[in-house]
């Protein structure tokens, strides 16, 4: 079979691109190496319980029916309904640093008050920063130049504590680069977290993925699971086929890859890559505790806590297996649902050293995961009530898990430090979408697939 486009990867970006192409009557096939869809944002069942991977919350929250924001754009482009995503808003979240906590909700005015209260001398600068952010066109695909976000922010804000507190959630939820991020990425993250905020479907990420798959197939799209791509075939500098792990060749006019920039170029020529984009190495370990009660019954009502216990915030590949100084605590129970979730959950995520986790021998791996799980929870107890006596099940994922399910070298979560905003590669008819194109988060990933499909594949 010959396709107009084959898409590598059935994650959020690949599925969204697929929906667009199938809707406009393109012959399209999505190839996924794994037995299930989702990639970086997927789901699984373990010991009779449902788990989400990746997703703490969907950013870019908007009230159903609202117009103009990324979420409404996305739904329009996919011809999907607000109910399809069933997003329920967060309760409230916080950024907790030594001696200072800033709370935020999905109402930006509340965050502004919090900053004014905690940093009265910085508030004018903060408001100037907010205006700079509003005026910045972060979605300009032809913007190739990167600007240091720390530099821009320090032009408006002088207190290093406030700077670190602003960067902490934005980096944790989307920075592929250590210490600093590109200002456009900062703007995307700032709007998606502080202006728009968090939401979550009651049924978790599987709801969105299942709706996307159903929609894609109903439009005539083909989805092949257990169909890993081992090679992208190019003739005369033009991609025109892919070879699957089992040797099958599938020809196509275009190839859209969500596998990552470095990972994709390896598929073009494993021996002599034409360009060698650097693979990222920012990655995480996550401890997932299943509780016999709602976190709220222990006095914990916050949706997400971004914490840092060190004097300054260090966002970088740690020297130790896990950086215990900072992390993210997410309670998927603490969204505004109409009924309680099946069980209580506490997810704690912290920066991890990829090589340590990837190279551990299998027998030692399980044991180390459990050891570090205990240490991560212990370090988070400064910020949440001690829930340990309520834990009925535990799961942990590490960079090794992420590498296995996403194919990302180093098990990196946010992809390569250098992004390819226009989605182009040195090979004609081969395009990138997803993490390494550079739109972030779940809504960002979906917009990435849509944007690249619109720009090159719907002509």
């Amino acid at each position, binding site marked *: 079979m010959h396709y107009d486009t084959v898409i590598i990867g059935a994650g959020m970006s690949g599925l969204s691109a697929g929906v667009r192409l199938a809707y406009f009557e393109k012959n399209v096939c999505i190839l996924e190496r794994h037995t299930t869809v989702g990639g970086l944002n997927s789901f699984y069942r373990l010991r009779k319980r449902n788990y989400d991977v990746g997703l703490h919350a969907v950013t870019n929250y908007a009230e159903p029916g609202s117009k103009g924001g990324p979420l409404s754009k996305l739904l*329009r482009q996919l011809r999907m309904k607000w109910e399809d995503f069933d997003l329920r808003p967060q309760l409230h979240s916080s950024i907790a640093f030594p001696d200072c906590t800033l709370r935020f909700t999905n109402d930006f005015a509340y965050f502004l008050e919090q900053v004014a209260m905690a940093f009265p001398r910085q508030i004018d600068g903060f408001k100037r920063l907010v205006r700079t952010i509003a005026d910045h066109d972060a979605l300009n695909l032809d913007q190739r130049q990167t600007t240091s976000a720390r530099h821009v922010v320090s032009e408006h804000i002088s207190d290093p504590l406030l700077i670190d507190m602003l960067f902490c959630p934005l980096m944790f939820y989307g920075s592929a680069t250590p210490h600093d991020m590109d200002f456009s990425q900062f703007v995307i993250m700032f709007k998606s977290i502080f202006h728009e905020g968090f939401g979550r479907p009651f049924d978790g990420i599987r709801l969105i993925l299942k709706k996307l798959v159903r929609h894609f197939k109903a439009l005539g799209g083909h989805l092949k699971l257990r169909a890993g791509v081992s090679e992208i075939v190019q003739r005369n500098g033009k991609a025109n086929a892919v070879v699957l792990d089992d040797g099958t060749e599938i020809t196509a006019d275009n190839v859209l890859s969500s596998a990552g920039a470095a990972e994709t170029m390896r598929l073009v020529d494993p021996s002599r890559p034409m360009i060698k984009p650097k693979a990222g190495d920012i990655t995480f370990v996550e401890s997932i505790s299943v509780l016999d009660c709602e976190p709220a019954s222990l006095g914990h009502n916050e949706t997400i806590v971004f914490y840092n216990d060190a004097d300054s915030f260090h966002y970088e590949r740690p020297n130790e297996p896990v950086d215990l100084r900072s992390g993210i605590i997410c309670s998927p129970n603490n969204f505004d649902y109409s009924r309680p979730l099946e069980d209580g959950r506490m997810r704690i995520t912290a920066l991890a050293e990829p090589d340590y986790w990837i190279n551990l021998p299998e027998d030692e791996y399980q044991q180390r995961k459990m050891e570090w799980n205990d240490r991560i929870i212990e370090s988070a107890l400064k910020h949440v009530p001690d829930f340990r006596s309520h834990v009925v099940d535990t799961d942990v994922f590490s960079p090794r898990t992420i590498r296995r399910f996403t194919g990302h070298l180093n098990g990196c979560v946010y992809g390569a430090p250098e992004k390819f905003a226009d989605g182009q590669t040195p090979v004609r008819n081969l395009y990138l979408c997803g993490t390494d194109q550079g739109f972030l988060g779940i809504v960002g990933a979906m917009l990435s697939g849509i944007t690249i499909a619109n720009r090159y594949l719907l002509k």
Partner: protein
Amino acid sequence: MTGVEIRQAVLEILERIAPDEDLSNLDDAIAFRDQMELDSMDFLDIVMELRKGYRVQIPEEDYHNLNSMQSTVEYLTPKLKDVPVAG
């Protein structure tokens, strides 16, 4: 298709692209953009929906003809006069 039928077809396209918009008071003489939230992505979708539904090709230099309902219907009338109403 007649002008009335074309207007109805465009209205249905707008409903598909922007289901959150109330189109009952749409003023045909005023630009779409001035009475509904329509960005460039939505605008391109009008062009693509017309191509999909009615096999009409609209070159980029003609896009300005699609600013309002009135100008869209005027522009499409000769192009769609022999095209049957889509199901």
